[in-house]
């Protein structure tokens, strides 16, 4: 049984349709990522699931519970790190955790949470004196203080430097090890690819596509770009180009000096043929690569929009 099930969610603000139709379900222990351009409806979707905004239509069930009937029980089961992480600035890290822990019937030990978010050494610092990354880690700590089954992280790494971002990834991976379900939104494709079991691309209030990162990439066109550069200069590259154009699967070739690009629907076959030719002629190949496809390509392919970090 899925731990979170969302069906036919819809929300309009006046004339603006923030969420048109969104349905998905998340299994226990998954890291489920929602990505999309600004204004796609990610935050509104999360806020409806978190019980902050009532949806105009649709149903939300968390572990079989609904907001209408089981508000408190759902709040015990979920932990939320909202986009703007607000906490008590004049309380220390430890005091914030202690206060939030008192809101719940059961909670994790504060020492354990401090350890997990790597703030044990700073626990007596006032929140107002923390760095962006420390603040964000505390926000995640507050989300997990009640030892929830489902944790919502709304853009946890936005605005952080690469090291701070990696620290947050570590926390997400630890949560996964603990068997927690994580619903994540992010602006970074790399992050979605690294952390998620499944990715859901949202645009204009609808789900464009939903699958594992690998399957999404796989679903893109089969034509791959292959790059080869030759040590023996332009003439070798030119000869190779004329041969390559005849090889099976190759649809297009472009050459620039000693650097050759070819597009192929069977890149392995094409390369096999090309290397047979270079070996026969004794041409030395300097570099060879098949360009990896990323979620960014998936995003562009599905939404027709440039990805901006």
């Amino acid at each position: 049984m899925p731990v979170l099930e969302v069906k036919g969610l819809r929300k309009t603000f006046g004339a603006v349709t923030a969420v048109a139709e969104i349905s998905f379900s998340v299994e226990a222990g998954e890291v489920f990522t929602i990505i999309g351009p600004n204004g796609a409806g990610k935050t509104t979707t999360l806020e409806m699931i978190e019980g902050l905004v009532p949806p105009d239509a649709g149903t939300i069930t968390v572990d079989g519970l609904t907001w209408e009937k089981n508000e408190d029980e759902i709040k015990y089961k979920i932990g939320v790190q909202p986009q703007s992480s607000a906490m008590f600035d004049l309380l220390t890290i430890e005091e914030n955790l202690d206060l939030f822990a008192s809101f719940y019937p059961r909670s994790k030990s504060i020492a354990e949470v401090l350890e997990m978010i790597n703030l044990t050494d700073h626990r007596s610092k006032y929140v107002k004196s923390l760095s962006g990354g420390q603040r964000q880690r505390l926000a995640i700590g507050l989300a997990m203080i009640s030892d929830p089954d489902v944790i919502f992280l709304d853009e946890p790494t936005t605005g952080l430097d690469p090291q701070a971002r990696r620290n947050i990834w570590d926390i997400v991976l630890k949560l996964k090890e603990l068997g927690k379900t994580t619903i994540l939104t992010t602006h970074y494709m790399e992050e979605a690819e690294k952390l998620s079991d499944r990715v859901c691309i949202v645009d204009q209030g609808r789900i464009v596509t939903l699958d594992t990162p690998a399957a999404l990439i796989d679903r893109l066109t089969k034509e791959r770009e292959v790059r080869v550069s030759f040590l023996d200069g332009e003439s070798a590259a030119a000869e190779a180009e004329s041969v390559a154009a005849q090889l099976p699967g190759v649809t297009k070739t472009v050459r620039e000096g000693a650097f050759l690009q070819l597009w192929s629907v069977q890149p392995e076959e094409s390369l096999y043929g090309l290397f047979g030719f270079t070996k026969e002629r004794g041409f030395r190949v300097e570099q060879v690569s098949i360009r990896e496809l990323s979620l960014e390509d998936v995003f562009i392919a599905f939404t027709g929009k440039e990805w901006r970090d």
Partner: protein
Amino acid sequence: MSRTRQLGKLFVADMKLMFREKQVWFWNIFFPIILMVIFMLIFGSSSENFKAKVAIVETSANATSDRLEQELRNVPVFEWKSEQPVDQAQADKWIEDKDVDAVIVLPATEDAKTLKLIFNKETEMSATSQAISGIVGQFIEQANWSEAGVTPTFNLDVSSISGGSEDLEYADFLMTGQIALAIAQGGLFGMVGMVEMRRKGLLKRLKMTPVRLGLLGLSGMIVRFILGVFQILVLTAIGAGFFGVNLHIDPATLIVAFFVGAITFNALGYLFSSFSKTMEAYMGYANIASFVMMFLSGIFFPTSGFPDWLKTVSEVLPLTYFVEGMRDGMAYGSGIGSSDYWLGIAILAGWGAVTYAIGALVYRRTKIEAR
């Protein structure tokens, strides 16, 4: 069980938040102290040591002027600029420079019957000038009677009477007013935290937890009650210790007035917070309310000197009734048995109930999630 635990934790957190905020110390403790001390130093000296600095002008010495001078020199509240009469030019200079409060010009000839009193135009309306006119007027009356050999049939013996205790002095009036003002301002400005919590999204964050926001309000209220008690103790200690304030405390009267007042002014702050999107807006509303009431509710001066229309305004304001209630409890030592006291408390409570209701309505209409 867990509710009490939550309330306990919230209360401890609220206490820390309040006392770690330097602004709270300044506006709720130091500012009222400074205000009270300044007013005490300027106006606090009571009427028994009223002194007026006066000079006498004698244009030409004669029997009448000599006798009048002799008598005037015996008036105890006059402090003499010079032991000898001076000429008109010197006296005018003193008046202009405000070296003296008034100059008395003695009759120039034995037959002249007029005593002239000169004030500086700027201070002619001051209480001191009025008092000097009164004293000199009375002095002349006495002189007339003795001249005519009449023993007056009626005498006026002036003494002040105040409700309850006989020795209510300005310092007592001022200190109790200042205490009421401090508590009222604590409430009016105290909800700034709420505005900040809403603006920063903390209220929204708390809504995601199972905590009851009512508990949050309750703990904030308890903390401000404690601050109020602290204000009473500090201001009373300073008033009694340095300015000889007399206390006539009736605990029941004081406690009822304090509770109802503190709740009412918290409700006013709550109302302001409901329609303030920023801290600046909130501070603006609170400042206007506090300023208007500070001067119209009889904190520093009795309202009896106000024109009628202004008295009406004063009779509408909640601080008027709060300060009366606090004075009943701290300076007059009575009130709990009087219907006036309860009428005041009822009006005060009415203000609290109405402002709270409007505030709650506005809060319900505006979404907390509004960013």
